[in-house]
């Protein structure tokens, strides 16, 4: 195949593969870190050991994901230099600066307290441990913020101008708070919360379905679902407003998402295609199933608002259509399914209370299976969302300012084939290994050990001497 001898395609495939693999892991750890902080804070505040056990159990899931997330992200940073040298040189003033912030402010903070969070239970006080967990949660969220600043800027570059082949900064404020940042970061952060809550709900459902540790997992199931009742619909709202903003900032991407070739005439609405076979060569859909006016309604919130079609752009400036079009539909369907599950479960919790007790909850087989299914759905949504976002940005590496073809390093095809193959083989192996170990953690289930010490603020009401397990 010709593509496998095309250096630009190989570098894109390599970065795309690394990114799609990497994004499977950190969203869960970002969301779980906040959940763990909440559980640990509840333990410190109330002294109830159940919160401690919850925190320890979910930490195991956190840990596997954190390890794979950190190591799979390492090559992403270096990829900009190895494969995208001209882009790095041109955009270093801003893009490199932001990655520098991310590593020094956020990533280091997270790494600096991670050891204490994971291994420090017997070495520091409960309050100090809570602080370390908080710093890991704060660091990972801040990290996501800076990464999204950099990524949003590639989507809607502002505050810079092209001078002698370099993107020189005219305003840091405009470049950081670029038009896409609020939507981009908001949507990503919500995805982190949502995926984490779906995993806690789905894993709890797995135990409830198997009648294991029902008293432990029913509360976890409940707080996960109740949080999702807020988070899942909110995510849909943010996604909707992001779509409306896209019409202003990246109209070609929006047109690709809807496979809309022609701008609607004044007074008519743009139709919405449920399914379509886009044909870029002919600049039309070979066939489509459409609903009238709905694209106008979604994008402009009016039945005949103008939505730009792809033919407004030269074919050389049009993104590929197939992946954004179907990727978007898959993401929406998966997100809708999660919101549906949350609202249905809320209804059951309210109207069928007697069936949602520890003794009886396992009988809701379809509901619990649905929640287990929500886990892959959440991951599919996040992958599809990234494909839409990044493929839709093409053929630009910095939207409207620098083409992807201008940003790529000239590396020999043989070397690129070798490195792409290495990453595919290596990531597949660690992905499978991580899943096997995850299954091991789930089979083993929670361990109900006593905390190493009581939370500090309750130390004075403990009457029996605290057993210290002798440092090691």
């Amino acid at each position: 195949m010709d593509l496998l001898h095309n250096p630009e395609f190989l570098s894109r495939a390599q970065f795309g593969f690394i990114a799609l693999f990497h994004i499977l892991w950190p969203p869960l750890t970002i969301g779980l870190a906040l959940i763990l902080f909440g559980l640990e804070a509840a333990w410190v505040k109330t002294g109830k050991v159940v919160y401690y056990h919850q925190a320890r159990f979910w930490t195991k899931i956190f840990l596997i994901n954190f390890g794979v997330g950190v190591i799979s992200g390492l090559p992403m940073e270096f990829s900009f230099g190895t494969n995208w040298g001209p882009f790095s040189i041109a955009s270093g003033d801003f893009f490199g600066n932001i990655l520098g912030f991310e590593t020094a402010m956020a990533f280091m903070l997270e790494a600096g307290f991670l050891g204490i969070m994971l291994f420090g239970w017997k070495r520091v006080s409960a309050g100090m441990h809570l602080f370390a967990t908080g710093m890991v949660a704060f660091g990972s969220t801040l990290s996501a913020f800076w990464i999204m600043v950099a990524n949003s800027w590639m989507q809607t570059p502002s505050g810079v101008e092209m001078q002698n082949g370099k993107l020189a900064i005219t305003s840091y404020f405009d470049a950081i708070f670029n038009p896409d940042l609020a939507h981009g970061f908001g949507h990503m952060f919500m995805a982190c919360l949502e995926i984490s809550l779906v995993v806690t709900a789905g894993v709890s459902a797995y135990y409830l379905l198997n009648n294991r540790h029902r008293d432990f997992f029913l509360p976890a199931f409940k707080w996960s679902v109740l949080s999702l009742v807020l988070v899942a619909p909110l995510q849909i709202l943010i996604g909707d407003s992001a779509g409306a903003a896209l019409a202003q900032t990246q109209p070609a991407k929006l047109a690709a998402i809807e496979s809309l070739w022609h701008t609607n005439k004044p007074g008519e609405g743009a139709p919405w295609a449920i399914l379509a076979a886009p044909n870029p060569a002919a600049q039309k859909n070979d066939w489509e199933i459409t609903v009238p006016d709905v694209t106008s309604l979604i994008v402009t919130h009016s039945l005949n608002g103008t939505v730009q079609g792809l033919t407004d752009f030269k074919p050389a400036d049009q993104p590929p259509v197939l992946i954004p079009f179907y990727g978007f539909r898959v993401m929406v369907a998966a997100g809708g399914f999660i919101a549906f599950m949350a609202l249905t479960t809320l209804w059951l919790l309210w109207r069928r209370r007697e069936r949602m007790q520890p003794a009886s909850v396992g009988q809701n087989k379809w509901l619990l299976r649905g929640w287990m299914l929500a886990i892959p759905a959440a991951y599919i949504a996040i992958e599809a969302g990234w494909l839409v976002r990044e493929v839709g940005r093409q053929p630009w590496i910095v939207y409207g300012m620098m083409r992807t073809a201008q940003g790529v390093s000239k590396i020999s095809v043989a070397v690129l084939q070798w490195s792409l193959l290495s990453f595919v083989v290596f990531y597949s192996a660690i992905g499978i290994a991580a899943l096997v170990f995850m299954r091991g953690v789930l089979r083993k289930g929670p361990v109900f050990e006593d905390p190493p010490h009581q939370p500090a603020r309750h130390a004075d009401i403990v009457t029996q001497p605290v057993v210290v397990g002798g440092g090691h």
Partner: protein
Amino acid sequence: MDVIALDSTHHLLATIWFLIIGLFMVIYVVLDGFDLGVGVLSLFVGDEPRRAAMMSSLGSIWDANETWLVVIGGTLFGAFPLVYGTVLHGLYIPVIVMLLGFMLRGVSFEFHELSTNKPIWSFTFGLGSLIAALAQGFTLGGLLNGVQVVNGVYAGGTMDWLSPFSVFVAIGVVAGYAMLGSTYLIMKSRGMMQDACFARGQWLALTMMVAAAVVTVWTPLQFPAIFARWLSVPNVYYFALLPLAALFSLVMLLRALKNRSEVAPFVWTTLIFLFSFAGLAATWFPYIIPGYITIDQAAASNNTLVFMLVGIGMLIPVMITYNIYQYVVFRGKVDPDNTHTY
């Protein structure tokens, strides 16, 4: 006049960032150096409990140590984008191999903890460490060899990083890391494990020093400009101080090993690294890509350098403080019978 003022500001800012990234590199090389070194040494240990204890001595800190490399990557990208975009391209193969090595050892830590088949994961941990350390040596060797840059674009070949010279640099880096690893384990262990480290330290120190001496002699022979720079009066007196200080540290290191001091060997090894690093930096300054690009040519705009200085510069003491705190929390010896779990 204006142009000169602007240039001197730019030079000052570029120099500050050169020093900051140099500081990060020293921190990184010492911390991840002992970390990788312990991994390399674990390949030569026969029994699993001892390998597990060696891994456990790093469990709580390896991630933070390695993060300094990520910080170097990020700050280099921001402050010297030209270096980032050309050197990593020129050294593509050793850099990718290094990343694969890091990833292999990174997952090994975790999977070792969770798996029932521990020997496999302690082996991949050692192998990944060795691969990463060797690849780092070749990266450094390749950089010193010369990364050919013409008009801001890498203009060399795919295999430029590989040469007899870079082989020596790679051997020196691996031996140096193993030395750091040994002296770290002397602090963190007792009994038989510690005895082995004392015994091994002698010849590791000599290997490291021979490799460093070869590199030091070879560099001026390879680059006439450096030959002239080093051996002109009065430069020769200043430059001679660094190898003399390194040699003195080596003597003190060997003595400390013989006296079975626990902390001193690590300190002296660190000093050897410090003097070698200062020697490299002083030899090439103001070049940042030896022979091709100076720090002024590679540095980002003044705006960016200032913005980064405000954002990152002030954080440096904070970063160092919480990293030290982490070491304080996990101070003390590793007990092979009671490795910590989460």
